[in-house]
């Protein structure tokens, strides 16, 4: 049996190892981090059958709850871990060629820390540990956003840092309130006794927690750092931040709301805020000329959709939200990764400069095409099924409010289709833009030759695309895992307070 703690320990220890190796052989750092992630991913998969039987509880430092620190890995945690690990594995493969400067070692280390933070957040059973992992995640992402060291990325990183710190502070306040009232940090323990708290204390804890983690979960209006941060980070990091980091924060928020603050009003608030985020994200993306900002706003929209589905509070909607998280992780990562090489080749972020680029980067263009259609929800791609199940679940929850919100979600889809189609048509125009004609790859010369990204970068992108097209065949087993995760989540929900 694999001890689940290894999932966190292996990447964490590799970070130290990388720092050592980096002194002498900086070339190996990327490979080392890739191997560590591959190993961890393999382990996570071997845990799958066991976790589906019963959640695994790991007690650290020898003492049981309520004093000790523990990890609690149920299907929900494992599902998210798999999303995190598989995405990171592919992105780290992409980074081999994409990150080519001398600071590779630093990049690989922070990359692993980002994963450690995310994995810890989804696996921990202790609310203070949650805070610690949250901080690991945030700090590594602040630095990674600033990685390119230009004016934009530094500004974005500072903003992200300051706003993120407010969020962390709020999170800490919430934890302090809970600890002061109940004297325990174990989530299960708090959940069992949260009723003992006076209502106003509980509300304060709920509000601080929601807002605190909401900053990282990019809920409107706490997501103001996101368009800057996601667009000025290296594309591989944007893929990670959009692909799973926001979603991890979101699911952790919902998990805590389910177990500690199950107020009906909070669910409604989050559902409405989700739809508002979605509309704002999609409408704002419609007017973007910078490809990465457009994708970042689209992430705000997609996260809004996921939040909407998660806060409907029905099993079907939650399962649908999990499917959408998977779809978004694959599709948005693919989009960011593809745009990374388009930016390198043309030297521009402007969509107008990519006119006709699909004819010189056919594979990238095609993957972009597939990912866009999956995000919009075109059958038979994976996104159709996730969006379809969200809408079905929302409408069948039977309330008029949910139906009206669903109508707005569908309006958002129309806007989404409009701006993505505009970009796609741009890619496939016959007359290439100057930047495209002038673009050269490191191999070939000439205006007609292919400027496709190197194979090492294209393989992971193709893997994402393959998942989006063929994922339907896996729908049965994915839904099975998502179902187990839903059960895991709903087991925490004792009763909803009206």
């Amino acid at each position, binding site marked *: 049996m694999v001890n689940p703690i290894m999932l966190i320990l292996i990447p964490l220890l590799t970070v130290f190892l990388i720092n050592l190796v980096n002194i002498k052989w900086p070339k190996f750092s990327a490979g080392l981090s890739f191997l560590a992630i591959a190993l961890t991913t393999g382990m996570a998969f071997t845990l799958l059958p066991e976790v589906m039987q019963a959640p695994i509880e790991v007690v650290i430092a020898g003492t049981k709850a309520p004093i000790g620190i523990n990890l609690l890995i149920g299907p929900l945690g494992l599902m998210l871990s798999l999303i995190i690990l598989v995405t990171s594995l592919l992105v780290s493969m992409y980074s081999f060629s994409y990150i080519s400067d001398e600071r590779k070692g630093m990049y690989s280390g922070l990359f692993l820390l980002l994963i450690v933070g995310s994995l810890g957040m989804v696996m921990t059973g202790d609310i203070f540990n949650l805070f610690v992992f949250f901080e690991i995640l945030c700090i590594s992402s602040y630095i990674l956003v600033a990685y390119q060291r230009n004016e934009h990325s530094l500004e974005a990183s500072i903003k992200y840092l*300051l706003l993120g710190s407010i969020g962390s502070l709020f999170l800490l306040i919430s934890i302090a309130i809970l600890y002061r009232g109940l004297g325990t940090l174990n989530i299960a323990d708090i959940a069992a006794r949260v009723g003992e708290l006076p209502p106003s204390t509980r*509300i304060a804890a709920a509000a601080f927690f929601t807002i605190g983690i909401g900053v990282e979960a990019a809920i409107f*209006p706490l997501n103001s750092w996101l368009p800057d941060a996601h667009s000025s980070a290296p594309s591989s990091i944007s893929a990670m931040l959009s692909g799973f980091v926001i979603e991890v924060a979101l699911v952790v928020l919902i998990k805590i709301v389910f177990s500690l603050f199950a*107020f009906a009003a909070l669910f409604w608030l989050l559902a409405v805020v989700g739809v508002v985020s979605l509309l704002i994200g999609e409408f704002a993306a419609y007017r973007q000329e910078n490809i990465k900002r457009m994708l970042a706003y689209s992430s705000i929209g997609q996260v809004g959709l996921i939040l909407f589905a998660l806060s409907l509070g029905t099993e079907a909607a939650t399962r649908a939200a999990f499917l959408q998280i998977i779809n978004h992780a694959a599709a948005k990562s693919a989009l960011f990764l593809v745009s990374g090489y388009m930016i390198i080749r043309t030297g521009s972020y402007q969509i107008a400069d990519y006119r006709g680029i699909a004819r010189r980067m056919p594979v990238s263009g095609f993957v972009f095409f597939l990912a866009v259609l999956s995000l919009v929800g*075109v059958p038979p791609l994976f996104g159709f099924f996730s969006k379809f199940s969200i809408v079905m679940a929302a409408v*069948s929850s039977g309330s008029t409010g949910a139906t009206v919100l669903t109508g707005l979600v569908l309006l958002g889809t*129309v806007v989404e289709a*409009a701006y993505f189609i505009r970009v796609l048509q741009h890619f496939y125009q016959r007359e290439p833009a100057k930047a495209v004609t002038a673009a050269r790859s490191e191999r070939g010369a000439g205006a007609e030759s292919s400027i496709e990204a190197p194979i090492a970068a294209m393989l992971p992108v193709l893997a994402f695309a393959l998942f989006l097209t063929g994922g339907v065949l896996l729908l049965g087993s994915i839904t099975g895992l998502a179902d187990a995760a839903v059960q895991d989540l709903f087991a925490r929900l004792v009763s909803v307070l009206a």
Partner: protein
Amino acid sequence: MLTEPVALMLLLSVAGVVLNIILYRLQSLQMIVSFLVFAAMLALNLQLYGTIGETLVLPVVVFGQAMSFAVSPLAFYFTLMITSITLLTVIFSLESLRGKACTQAYYLWLFLKTFGMLGVVFAADLLTFFLLWELMTWGTFFLMQQTGGESFSPAKKYVVYAVSSSMLLFLGIALIHAWTGSFSFREVAAAFPHMPEGMMLLVVLLMTVGFAVESAMFPLHAWLPESYASTFTSLTSYLSGISTRMGIYGLILLLFGFVGHELADRFQLIGVINLRYIVSIFGALTIIIPTFTALFQHDAKRLVTWHGIGQGGYMILGIFSANALGIAGGIFHIFNYMTYVTLILFSIAAVEYRTGTSNLNKLGGLIKRQPVAFLGLLFGIIGLAGIPPMNGFVSKWFIYKALITEGYPFLAISAIIGTLGTILSVYKLIHNIFLGQLQPEYNEIKEVPFLMQLPIWVLMLAVFATGVFPGPILSLIAEIQSSFGLAPVPYTMTGVDPAAGTLDMLVITTVFIGGLLLAWIVFLLGHKRRHVSQYQNYAAGHFLDESIPYNFNYNFYTGFEHIFNPMKKKVIARTEVAVSSLVEAAGDYLRRIYTGNLATYAMYIMAALVVTSLFLKELI
């Protein structure tokens, strides 16, 4: 299982997609393979006739729901149209697109689109229906932009319309599922009458508007003309001929399959005006406005695509007339329209193939150069204008008759006004292309190759034969009517039973041909004729030799334009602009929330905290 042909047909269209991807760069192979596959599909489709009424459940399970397909009489009628017109299109494009650049994906999208359409028509549950409906509309989108550059912007417009329409359908289907707990057509139909009135009205409205977009019903038609006209002409015919009609299929399914007539009449609004009547009024507007817009088009393809919208109005009027004859007329008109509009567009494509243009200001006098195309266009426009002995007359006659007997004189009059406009504009079409003076640069052109002539001949035969003997098609339509529990149309081989209003096309045709013979005899008896060159001509006291270009065709119907121009308000175009600028403005304003100012951002967080706390405190 007797319904194996259904599975095979669907499988073949998927195979077509895959084969075309494999043969991506080998155009000739693509053509041959596509032709063979479509021919096989038509053959399979014909076999389906014996299996009407059977259901096939595919072992593909989506969300615990196996995809189910059924061969209803309506499905058979539609698939027959789909497979035959696709085969003709493919035969036509064998020659017309040979050697043309950028056709690698042509057959691929054609197969995808056909797969979508067949699936939509065969679907026996709403999940399958919606899934394939989406696939079909995206297939249309990809087909539209085959010619590149100039077709992109109209195609984008289509996508916005089509996605909006899909989303309305989606919401409608989700509501149906939430209320009836099932996707299956049969169970939905059974549970539909038990829905609460308000919910039912909402569902019906959502789905009617959704389907109205796809069938280009006024005022939701604005996406159609440019997007259809800017692709290859062989595709224009395919898209106008069958693709737009999928919206009508949806309306038939909704009205007869789910709602039922009695229920539709229940939505009384003011006095006798009910939902059905309102849809009919939009149908009438769909006839009149686009038909008269067609009059002023100077491009043959655009002119015909505007008629594509207008003719849809007749189908709506018929189907929503609540009269056996009218419903049969509406459904029959779908078939007739498909045959003659494809014929017209193939003939135009034949002209375009040789002259390189479909601009009505630049053509003329091609009658002796391209006689087959001329005959094709002649047969087609007689059908389009609804003149005997072609099939368009029969269905239009049914519709007029039904509207008058049901007591809708205004609708009947608008249908007749529409026909008037049609006659005017089709005259422009045939005159400007084939009559008048031949332009010198087209002196040397020849008729198109045989493979392009073949579909024209086949369709000419179809337009004429189903005009004189509408019986076989009407028998299918009577079956459709019975399957929905409606009274079947009392058809005979050559028309309808005297009891329902005498129509015998054989007599009419005989009289018609007799009249033509009489005219021919009078012509022969007249003075001896002398053949002159087209330049041996005069006007206003001037001889018109080669140095004076004599071109009637240029800006044909300018007079009408002077009359109608003040009426053109471009309300729809302006609304479109307004909506798109609204979205842009909304985007700009919403983007400004993200000011870039850190202090503002921090304030947002604080405000959110306060609002959340207050909200929770108030409500708990």
